[in-house]
């Protein structure tokens, strides 16, 4: 097991390093330090001030190759900082990035965590329900609705949801955020509903397939022959045996709880990590962007390893070699 862990961690490290390398080249292929300075200071900033900014922020160093002092390059600094978790300050506004992460994590989690739990519960119950009624009109209606739900863009859900629930029915505020728990749910009602609905179609299709496959297996027939009730078969036997594909889908989704949702946060004015990433993209803020990408990659790799370990917990036959 230990050897397996080490091997997986090594693969993971290679992946993360690759992501960092790719990010560096993609970013500087697309933009230059002058551009970053102009975004940070404004379009009318005179060239002298732009130069001062570049020097103050260390972007005057050669990017990749510095024969005089090979360690004094942008790329060396990039890896040095990321690998030592020294996130530094934002290029856009000089705030410590760690503070920004701390500020943004709570709003992001208040959106994603309830959405994740409720989404999982609803998707699994609905799919158990349609799997149980397979080949009836309920199942077929479910297929139509799910495919319909999957085909619609999230942007339409957002604008449509705001228009319907906020503007026409006037049930909830169209956008906004307030950390006070008394009113929080009012602001998050539409994003939660939209997140739930937009994800439901795909999830239900996936879980239904898994459940239908499991219900066709011998052990289900045996259980039924022994007089086990339908409800018990579905929740006790089928659900448990379907845990491996469920886990694969669920654990991999966990890192995204922290990175937040780019579109939902932008449209609903939620000051979370997703909107920090969007700001960093718009503002050519390399320092913030790389931290968000780095953390995302790191969590993703860790989640993959965690998934493997979770397999052994739900299925004793699985061994990590």
């Amino acid at each position, binding site marked *: 097991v230990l050897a397996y862990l080490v091997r997986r961690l090594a693969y993971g490290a290679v992946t993360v390093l690759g992501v960092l390398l790719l990010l560096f080249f993609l970013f500087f292929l697309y933009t230059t330090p002058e551009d970053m300075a102009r975004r940070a200071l404004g379009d*009318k900033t005179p060239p002298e001030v732009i130069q001062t900014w570049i020097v103050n922020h260390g972007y005057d160093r050669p990017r990749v190759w510095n024969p005089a002092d090979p360690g004094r390059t942008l790329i060396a600094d990039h890896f040095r900082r990321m690998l030592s978790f020294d996130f530094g300050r934002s290029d856009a506004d000089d705030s410590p990035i760690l503070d920004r992460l701390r500020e943004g994590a709570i709003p992001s989690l208040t959106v994603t965590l309830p959405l994740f739990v409720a989404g999982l519960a609803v998707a699994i119950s609905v799919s158990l329900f349609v799997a149980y009624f397979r080949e009836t009109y309920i199942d077929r209606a479910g297929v139509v609705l799910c495919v319909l739900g999957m085909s619609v863009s999230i942007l339409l859900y957002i604008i449509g949801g705001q228009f319907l629930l906020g503007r026409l029915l006037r049930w909830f505020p*169209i956008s906004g955020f307030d950390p006070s728990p008394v009113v929080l749910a009012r602001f998050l009602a539409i994003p939660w509903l939209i997140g739930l609905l937009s994800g439901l179609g795909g999830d239900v299709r996936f879980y239904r397939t898994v459940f239908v496959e499991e219900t066709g297996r011998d052990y289900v027939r045996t259980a039924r022959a022994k007089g086990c009730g339908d409800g018990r078969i579905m929740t006790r036997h089928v659900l448990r045996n379907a845990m491996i594909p469920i886990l694969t889908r669920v654990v991999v989704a966990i890192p995204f709880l922290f990175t937040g949702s780019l579109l939902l946060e932008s449209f609903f004015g939620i000051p979370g990590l997703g909107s920090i990433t969007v700001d960093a993209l718009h503002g050519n803020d390399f320092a913030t962007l790389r931290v968000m990408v780095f953390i995302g990659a790191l969590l993703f790799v860790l989640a993959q390893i965690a998934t493997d370990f979770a397999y052994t917990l739900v299925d004793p036959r699985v061994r990590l070699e």
Partner: protein
Amino acid sequence: LNRVLGALVAALLGLGGCGNNPYPGADDAEKVRYKALPGALKTLDPAVSYVTTEHEITANVYETLLGYHYLKRPYELIPALALEVPRPRDLPGGRVAYRFRLRPGALYGEDPAFGHFEPGATTREVVAADVAFSLQRIADPAVTSPVSTTFAKLEGFSEFDEQYASAGGISGVRVLGPHELEIVLAEPYPQILYWFAMPFTAPVPWEAVAFYDGQEGRDFFKDHPVGAGPFRIGYYDRRSRISLERNPNWYGARHPEWKAPAAVYPAEGEPGDAAAGHLDPAYVGRPLPFLDRVEYRIEKEDIPTFNKFLQGYYDAAGIIQESFDAIVSEGALSPAMAALGMKLEKSVEPSIYYLGFNMNDPTLGSPAGERGRLLRQAMSLAVDSVEFSRVFLNGRGVPAQSLLPPGIFGYEAEYRNPFRQPDLARARNLLREAGYPDGVDPKTGRPLRLSFDLGDASSGGRLRALFFANAWKRLGLDVEISATDFNQFQDKVRRGAHQIYIWGWIADYPDPENFLFLLWGPMSGSKSRGPNNANFADPRFDTLFLEMKDRPNDARRLELIREMRAIVEHERPWIELFHRESYALYHAWMRNVKPAGLSLPSAKYADVDPALRKRLREEWNRPVVWPAYAIAGLVVVLVVPGIVTFLRERQ
């Protein structure tokens, strides 16, 4: 069943109140104004912030020495913290001095920073040394102020960098007493006074800069402004919500009896202000401010923001492209919107958008002599900026006849530039005269090939450039669009490798100098990296500019401007396109809002009628409950028979 469902819906809607109101607290007892800001704020450091949305906060929190008259156009400077607008005093060697006298007894807003250095203190008086401190901060390279080059005209400003180490000041900034400050300019620059109406030069207490260093849990100064303005920060989360509240320490609030010009509602304005309701006798002469609070929300997306405005949760809004035709019809408010009691206010920004020619270009520029000039004149006649603004801006642009936009001294509404009235026949004649009959270059026998250099690689940018290329195609010219990103474009401009380009300029201050310098020879982009990207150099124009720039707004200045205008008209280094116009919508409960193209602190003049707002909001936002019943009913109707049937079959 109905009652249970009703209770469920009520519980769902009742999560902390009812309906779609995004503001949890009551706001009908207080005067609160609600505004949306389009993105997170980066810095509230007055020496650094150069963005309109940030000035929205800094201009209200920091008090400047001078201000603008709220209503008068052309814009007029009035004293704010200063007792009067200073006059220039000539010194030997062409130097000029201005002496500011500060209002004694003006205090900063309360802040713990003062107590850190003087136990028990919560505020202190604004003194002249604070203004000197602000100017030093602009000079300090570590602060990276974007306006440092402007203040380089102050004597000893550029040397401050080195003096900094030896703790010397700027030699051209002299503190003569607690309330007296003199600045010395190495050369005349009367426009410097406008910079004293902007937050850059607002007095800043050194205590706040020293205390808010981001250490040991303290804020950074850029997130914690401490000023002497009419409002102070009540709540600051730069990514979500900002709240300004009245500053009881503001000199206008503490001393209404002073009747300071920037602390009472003005009694006069420009013609038409009375009719527009800007001179309501209920407000004239009353001490400012009228609002108790200004609440800002960060809204990144236009559509939700506009929908919230329509619900009455924002007091004012711009018009989003998607809804333009539903809101505005034929330049006025559509009947549906007018029925809601809204007002549409149009204002022309002090800006100019133009097509420029690189005057160093051998085909288009001065090296081509008379031929080049005729070619530029012909191309100018082919461009229809009315059509352009109709297609791309929903008509929100005033066709430009010269560099100067309305509201700026020297703008004359009746002036018509003969080369800016589209006339293809005349353009073809001029082209023939230039030696390019039907746009054909006799040297090659093919249409004359020119390059439109575009610093915008987006499809929208290309489309706009295509509009002009097509206009010139009608003359037979072959204009190729060469689109690159902005950096490469700037590099081309620096090297002088550009031919035709599009550019815009928004004034920093309302003076013709801030526009005419865009064509002043020494400001040439390729030679001195100045903003004269057309590299226009006309000796007569340059001489006139030097005389014009330091003059007060008198008849002679107008005469000079007219002559410069005539030179530009004839020489055509530019094809003036339009002055951008902004349309703003205001709800019926807003009072005293007059849009200004410049970002000036308007919060202290505005007022709201909270009772009217409450009534209209309630009328517009009654929740519609029946669909909740309908959805619940539908679920029951769909699912229950299925279950029943299935169970029956299984039996």
